[in-house]
């Protein structure tokens, strides 16, 4: 009953005409900036922060939250349409989404993403309303050892991302981990692998790597075709999923939602892992596993649901503990502070209208997103009928401006060009960029957690198996490794048996 009363407070706060307007404005702006590659929600929210000074706190937060998930949504759009993942969470969406677009199924991919996200958002919002405080307590149980084991599990599972050679995928993950370590070492302050360039002292921004390896690499690869054949088929199939499609994506969406909601609660990498994890799980479970990477609809549905659910539940640590789980959440906390609200555990009791208002508005925002975007899909798809040789210079311009505006630094643009070369070379050698990107994101975090765990345990490596949550995670990782390599083992065994005979 208390929940109903709370939701009533939230509905009252969120359903004022003004707040609905701010919510709509937020998701609209968010979608726009998400669609412009490179320009992320962090920069936009930072720029819009001063505007929110004059608003009441609820409206300010509702608008900023709208920008956040709107941008996540828009990021998937570019990932599907032109293979440009602007956010770490849409890297895996690009794998199958872009392939679908090339086969003329961009509309289907986009609508699947929209519907999957909406469903996941609804479930995650409910979870948020029901269990936010106890879930936050669980998240606090995660110390450095648990996080390290979680990352190991994530990496092992992500080997499945590859649709080619397993061993090359592992090598790409390692290369990604190493590239992720470029920059100042947090513990000692030593700048590593920076060639004395101050621009590298804070490491390489994810967007630079993604734009270079995915964006530029793909453009150069498409320039290989000397015949007039276009990159995308002109034949466009239905924009909305058929009954058969819906049946096919129901289970992946459900699994993605569950996984995303669970991982999103963990600050420090949880939400980022969710889309990778969902994709890997789906590829293993699905009967369609072989089609993954070649335009499987499940490969869009699962990670899209997972990342939206994760984006939603990542508000839990922020709202209940006042802890930012990513840079955007840090900005939201900044917005709260400017509004004179001290983020922390007391927000829920002292500001119920704010707390529940935001939660209710998330659902409203997700609803607006679907309403706003379903009609837009036709427009997006038509964009792909523009001949590629006219389209790609525009993509290059957006990539370059996006990367430049990260730090207003031309060095970042040069670096993107360098990763473009690496991306192209890798694609020529059948080394896939997605595992590298995951390693790149996780590298610095993994090292940090490892070292922190070792310092706090005074050098006792047993800490990873002595702590139950961590031990379970590592056991799962070993299990996953066995599952991944078992086909190969079985094959070898068969060969061995044959020799015996």
């Amino acid at each position, binding site marked *: 009953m208390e929940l109903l009363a709370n939701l009533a407070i939230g509905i009252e706060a969120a359903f004022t005409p003004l707040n609905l307007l701010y919510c709509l404005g937020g998701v609209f702006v968010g979608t726009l900036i998400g669609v412009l590659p490179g320009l992320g929600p962090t920069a936009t929210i930072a720029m819009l922060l001063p505007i929110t000074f004059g608003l009441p706190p609820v409206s300010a937060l509702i608008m900023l939250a709208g920008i956040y998930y709107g941008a996540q949504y828009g990021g998937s759009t570019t990932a599907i349409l032109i293979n440009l993942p602007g956010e770490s969470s849409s890297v895996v969406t690009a794998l199958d989404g872009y392939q679908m677009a090339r086969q003329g199924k961009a509309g289907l991919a986009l609508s699947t993403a929209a519907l999957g996200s909406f469903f996941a958002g609804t479930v995650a919002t409910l979870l948020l309303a029901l269990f936010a405080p106890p879930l936050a307590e669980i998240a606090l149980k995660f110390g450095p050892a648990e996080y390290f084991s979680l990352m190991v599990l994530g990496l092992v599972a992500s080997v499945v991302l590859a649709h080619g050679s397993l061993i090359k995928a592992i090598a790409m993950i390692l290369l990604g*981990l190493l590239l992720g370590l470029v920059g100042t070492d947090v513990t000692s302050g030593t700048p590593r692998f920076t060639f004395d360039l101050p621009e590298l002292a804070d490491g390489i921004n994810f967007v630079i790597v993604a734009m270079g390896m995915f964006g530029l690499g793909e453009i150069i690869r498409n*320039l290989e075709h000397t015949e007039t054949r276009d990159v995308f088929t002109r034949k466009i199939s239905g924009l909305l999923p058929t009954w058969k499609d819906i049946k096919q994506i129901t289970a992946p969406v459900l699994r993605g939602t569950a996984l995303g909601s669970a991982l999103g609660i963990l600050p420090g990498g949880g939400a980022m892992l969710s889309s990778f994890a969902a994709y890997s799980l789906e590829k293993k479970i699905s009967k369609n596993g072989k089609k993954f990477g070649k335009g499987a609809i499940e490969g869009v549905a699962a990670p899209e649901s997972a990342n939206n659910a994760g984006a939603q539940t990542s508000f839990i640590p922020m709202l209940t503990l006042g802890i930012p789980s990513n840079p955007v959440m840090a900005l939201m906390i900044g917005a709260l502070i400017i509004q004179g609200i001290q983020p922390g555990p007391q927000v829920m009791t002292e500001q119920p209208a704010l707390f529940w208002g935001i939660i209710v508005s998330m659902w409203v925002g997700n609803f607006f997103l679907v309403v706003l975007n379903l009609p837009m899909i036709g427009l997006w798809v038509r964009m792909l009928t523009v001949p590629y040789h006219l389209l790609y*210079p525009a993509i*290059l311009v957006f990539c370059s401006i996006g990367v430049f505006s990260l730090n207003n630094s031309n060095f970042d*643009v040069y670096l993107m060009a360098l990763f473009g070369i690496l991306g192209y070379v890798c694609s*020529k050698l059948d*080394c896939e960029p997605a595992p590298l990107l995951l390693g790149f994101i996780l590298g610095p975090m993994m090292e940090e957690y*490892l*070292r922190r765990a070792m*310092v706090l345990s005074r050098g006792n490596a047993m800490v990873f198996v002595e702590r139950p949550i961590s031990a379970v995670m590592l056991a799962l990782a070993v299990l996953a490794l066995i599952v991944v390599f078992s086909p190969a083992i079985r094959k070898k065994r068969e060969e061995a048996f044959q020799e015996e005979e």
Partner: protein
Amino acid sequence: MAAPIIRNPKDFLSGLMFIAFGAAFIYIAQDYTFGSPRRMGPAFFPVVLAIILVLIGLVVAVRGLLVTEDPPRGFTWRGLLLVIVSTLLFGALVRGAGLVVATPVLVCISAFASHLFKWKITAIIAIGLTAFCVIVFVYALGLPMPVIGPWFGR
């Protein structure tokens, strides 16, 4: 014709690439403290990773000598060069000359990489995109980017 020594250039070259990257990371990390498991230095984690990378690189390279597969095809120097050069030029120009110079340069040079390149349509795209970027990025979103850079006075 005798079987070539390198039967799968893709694997062989990837192997070499991994070995090269791994070796480079190990070499550079010589300057950093290695530390102990309790107090890991800045070199600990990267060196361990890089050693594994080199080992995997060796396996991949050797496999390239044993298993026969098609060599990579259709490498486009022209595409690679023009796309990279135009991007670099954008970076070099945007701060000093401003968006109105950097954007058309990027568009024209990169568009030249396509064999379907035509001057007229490219010029139209260049002008249209520049206008779009100036309006959306600089005026609407307020990104601190010069429209006309300081190289042309104020």
